């Protein structure tokens, strides 16, 4: 793919909806966006697992993975946790405001090679955002038939931290699809699972080997325990897929800061299999 023009300047996109996902512990909002320009809107394509560089004009730029599925043609979404300068500025914007976006960048989740497999999604907190893009893609009626059993294990800190509640009904009612939710500690009124996701894999999920592929994303410590457990259960590291986060500036493998060994997370990732990670230096 050749990119010949200077595309380091962002395109303008309008915030058409802002949803406050959580507020009590973490401040997370989901931004629904669309390009100002109609032809741009029509030509825009991306893959679940890819990301955009998002600009708040005058403030700065930061990478965000798509939280919506490309099957939604009219808009795309990012979920943003307020942590630093750019995310704070984003949180201060309102519907109708204009931001800048450029991309999509990165490799995205493997779609074709996942066809014909069982899929397990294990996501924690804001880490569910990039998974949601893929979940909504595979559960879409156009695509659902391409995959076998689909299971979701969504982990949150507490009931107040649950994300994407509006999707639950749809997820749960799709055929041959099972959805589980867990929180870290028992809590009054919570009747679903309790405990860290790695402790629930054996009991709550059916990992039919060898045709199962696992997508996991969440806090580094969760990924560590989950992947250790999965390997222990005999799942091939090439079938365990995660995404990495790194500080980035350019998004195209040039500016230097997101490299892990000779791989650039922005260009060669952010999606990697556990097998690939095993070959890379441990610098994340």
């Amino acid at each position, binding site marked *: 793919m050749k990119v010949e023009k200077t595309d380091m300047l962002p395109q303008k996109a309008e915030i058409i909806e802002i949803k406050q996902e959580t507020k009590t512990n973490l401040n997370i909002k989901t931004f629904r966006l669309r390009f100002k320009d109609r032809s741009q809107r029509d030509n825009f394509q991306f893959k679940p697992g890819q990301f955009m560089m998002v600009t708040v004009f005058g403030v*700065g730029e930061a990478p965000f993975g798509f939280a919506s599925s490309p099957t939604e043609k009219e808009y795309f979404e990012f979920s943003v946790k307020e942590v*630093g*300068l750019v995310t*704070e500025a984003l949180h201060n914007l309102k519907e109708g405001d204009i931001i800048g976006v450029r991309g999509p960048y990165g490799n995205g989740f493997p779609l074709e090679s996942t066809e014909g497999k069982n899929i397990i999604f294990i996501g924690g907190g804001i880490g569910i955002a990039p998974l949601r893009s893929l979940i909504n893609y595979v559960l879409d009626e156009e695509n659902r038939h391409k995959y076998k059993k689909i299971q979701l294990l969504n982990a949150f800190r507490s009931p107040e931290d649950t994300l994407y509640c509006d999707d639950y009904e749809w997820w749960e009612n799709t055929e041959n699809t099972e959805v589980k939710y867990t929180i870290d500690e028992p809590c009054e009124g919570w009747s679903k699972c309790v405990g860290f996701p790695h402790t629930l894999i054996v009991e709550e999920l059916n990992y039919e080997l060898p045709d199962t592929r696992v997508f996991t994303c969440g806090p580094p410590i969760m990924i560590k325990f989950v992947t250790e457990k999965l390997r222990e259960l005999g799942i091939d590291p090439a079938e365990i897929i995660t995404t990495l986060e790194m500080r980035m500036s350019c998004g195209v493998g040039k500016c230097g800061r997101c490299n892990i060994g000779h791989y650039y997370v922005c260009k060669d990732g952010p999606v990697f299999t556990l097998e690939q990670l095993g070959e890379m230096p441990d610098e994340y």
Partner: protein
Amino acid sequence: MSNYDSISQEISEIAKKLLKESKVDKVIGFGLGRFTKEITPIFIKKAEDADRLIFNKNCEMSLTKYLLNYKGEKVAIVAKPCDSRAINAYLSEDLIKREDLVIIGINGCPGIEGNTACEECNIRNAVICDYSVGQEMSEEEIQAEIEGFEDEIDKMNQAERLAYFQNEFERCTRCYACREACYVCNCEQCFTDSNKPKWLGESVKLNDNFTYHLMRGIHMAGRCVNCGACEMACPEGIDVRAFAAKMCSAAEEIFDYKSGMDPEQKTLLSEYKVDDSEKGFME
């Protein structure tokens, strides 16, 4: 004034003894690189390597800051008089422990080539040490050394000063060598790296460069020991010491305060007396 060779020899002997008797784990001093004949900080761990320690007119770095890397370890350090003041300042701020430290202080410091701070330096003997090397200089000898020194910037009028500093800071690439070389600059996060609030623009333009040097200069009040390490570190030959040096002389002139003279000394800005001079205030 002491001579470099005899100082070198004395340092090596003391270091050898300290390492042989396991009084310290390492000696921080100056030596030559493996491929260049340039002076570089060296960290001697074995008695047989102590001969590598030298002192000459190019020992321009302040070694004091390295002490922050060895908290809890027993280390010896070679200290020029200015560096010994920096050690005092660290002790007074409780950043290092006296009992972990063996100071090899240089008396009658013969100065560093190209370091303009030495031209006005009136502290030529180590102010704190366990071992002293070289020959102590008397007050008269010191006065004779700095006699006739005049601060060129002091003589300029406001417009000339502005022009002078514009010309200097225009060259700044914001590599932050001055900051990293300075013993005072040990903040966990420098204001330059803060983006909330954002004190400083990221562009390397004159106004941002000015802001950087002025803000850094202000932080030097009552802390700078006028060692000149910042200026020696600057790859663009910028007079980065000027603001800090001005802060030193102002502290001395207004509050009769000289930083790092005593390990018990409180920092200038942490003390307030009702009868403190308010020179310059609302003038």
